[in-house]
């Protein structure tokens, strides 16, 4: 219990923005603040209350049971399909479920509820129902979780009409976007990144609206678009490139739907060159959409065709040396940018 109390203090500090907190705490603070503000918000998922020091496998639900009670903080059986379907039904009846799916790979067990039910209900029923549902989960590779716990499935969801897709890359974005996701009347897929839960950052206590890309770093030579782990790598690459007098502008879309093409296109218009980097397999990945739209919109102003970096067309291997090979690393970003600048 003392652990939990300590957490609560720390978390309210997170919301207050006084010092850098890890991503998981920022998320925890967002849940706490949303649940405090609105009694219809509740969380459910597997192992949310008794795992670790009492907060789900990455700690995000820590202390919620103690603060909000068992009716609003629910450990579920291992039944992803029913959990998500029930959340959809609950949302249709006016409450605001925030479901944790332990890894995004397990959402594949709940695709009917997500795609056939949640995403379509509002439309099919002529606008009568809202589905104010958030499904929180984590995607991505990098920590040896192997093929069935490391996928980057954001493109699948972004392609489905009716879903919002959020891919926060910093604690501040995680906090602010989570508040907006919970407040949103639409079903939202909120994809955290498992390798970033301990990334630290200062958090403001304001919601961040969905559909606003953020220009993370200014630069005049090349726009690099990236989210989550790739955003982090791109920022590292930026330092290396800066030493070579190549200034990249880094843009993080933050939400894949709604997608802020205005901010993105404005940046690319300024730089005339664009690289899109993602962890998901390159082929048919979300970068293709950005590349296609930018090529079409900015045909005349682009100095080179939009370039992409993406994961290899492989499942994620377990061994570290292999895992590293299938996802773009800092060096790959650096060399892609160098190539672009020359072209």
């Amino acid at each position, binding site marked *: 219990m003392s652990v939990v109390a300590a957490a609560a203090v720390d978390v309210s500090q997170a919301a207050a923005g006084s010092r850098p907190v890890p991503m998981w705490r920022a998320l925890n603070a967002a849940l706490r603040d949303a649940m405090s503000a609105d009694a219809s918000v509740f969380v459910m998922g597997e192992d949310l209350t008794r795992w670790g020091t009492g907060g789900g496998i990455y700690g995000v639900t820590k202390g919620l049971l103690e603060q909000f009670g068992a009716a609003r903080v629910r450990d579920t059986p291992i039944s992803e*399909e029913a959990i998500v*379907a029930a*959340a959809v039904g609950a949302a249709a009846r006016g409450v605001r479920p925030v479901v944790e799916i332990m890894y995004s790979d397990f959402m594949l067990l709940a695709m009917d509820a997500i795609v056939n039910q949640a995403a379509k209900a509002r439309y099919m*029923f002529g*606008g009568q129902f809202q589905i104010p549902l958030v499904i929180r989960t984590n995607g991505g590779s990098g920590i040896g979780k192997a093929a069935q716990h490391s996928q980057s499935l954001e493109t699948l969801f972004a392609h489905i009409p009716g879903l919002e897709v959020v891919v926060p890359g910093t604690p501040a974005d995680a906090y602010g976007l989570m508040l907006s996701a919970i407040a949103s009347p639409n079903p939202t897929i909120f994809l955290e990144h498992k390798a970033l839960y301990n990334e630290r950052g200062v958090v403001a206590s304001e919601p961040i609206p969905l559909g606003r890309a953020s220009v993370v770093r200014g630069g005049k030579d090349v726009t690099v678009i990236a989210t989550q782990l790739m955003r982090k790598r791109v920022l590292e690459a930026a330092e290396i490139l800066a030493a070579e007098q190549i200034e990249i502008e880094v843009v993080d879309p933050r939400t894949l739907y709604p997608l802020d093409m205005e901010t993105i296109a404005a940046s690319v218009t300024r730089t005339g060159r664009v690289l899109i980097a993602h962890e998901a397999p390159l082929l048919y990945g979300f970068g293709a959409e950005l590349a296609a739209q930018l090529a079409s919109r900015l045909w005349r102003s682009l100095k080179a065709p939009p370039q992409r970096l993406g994961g290899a067309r492989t499942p994620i291997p377990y061994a570290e040396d292999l895992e590293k090979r299938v996802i773009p690393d800092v060096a790959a970003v650096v060399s892609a940018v160098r190539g672009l600048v020359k072209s």
Partner: protein
Amino acid sequence: MNLREHGRMALRMMLLIREFEQRLKGFADEKLIRGSTHPSVGMEAVAVGVSMALGPNDCIASNHRGHAHCLARGADPGRTLAEIFGRADGYCKGKGGSMHIGVQELGILGTNGIVGAGIGLATGAALAASVSNRNEVAVAYFGDGGSNQGVLAESMNLAAIWKLPVIFVCENNHYAQSSAIERMFAQPQISQRGPAYGVPSVDVDGMDVAAVYDAAEAAVTRARSQGGPTLIVADTYRFLGHMADDTQMYRALVEVDEWRGKCPIDRLANTLTAAGLLSDQERNEMSAEAKREVDDAEHMARQSPVPSAQWAFTDVDTWQAAEGVVA
């Protein structure tokens, strides 16, 4: 069911559903209905018996064969039929059709094109009641076929551990499309599945609206008193094909005839007559009234305009309306 109190209401509703559903084939032939539409003729007692046990704040999640569930829940026949025709006055502006009829104000979470999906949705509706301390009950309607979806097992377990006020209503009409229960179940008594997950279960004669009502009433009482879920398995039969263009080569005509002999409408009417609660003349009047009601519904649906073309792009979410098809 107290026949004196509820009998005539039940009969009236079953007659309405029968009349409504029997016309669908004609509408399909006339091309007023697109896609598939699944009539409940023969199964009226289940929807009616269950619905009569519900209150105004309760809700239902239905399946592909859902018109009866909607009508019994109080849906307007005209707006229901308009939806089936894909017209502007349909409950969903013509966007849903037969398999996607939702009615917010009646707590109808939709008929559903995905077999089994309503089970999870109703469980969630019960969860909403539980989380927000509202004394509401949710019903999931599904068929014998739907009971073979894993989501039923998961949902029953979830509802049982959380004591959710949900009633799982299985309409066992002996066939899932062309598949007879004998071929799809090794253990055909579906009601045995409930207790395996801690869900009290009951078999009921689905051709007897009074029996269905009584079972539903008991389940509602349990649900409202924090007693948790119930599984009701109603033995019933569809007199017509699975959908309009069904050759029915998978079943014997004599079997259909035999079940037609158990017609739930005749049964209730005869019971009422025998009890002195219904005269022949009254019965005929009630039939005539059902016809008139469906005539009116048909008239309304036929007159209803096609949806405004712009509606194709609205209601997806709260973001701007979808753009057209051009990139």
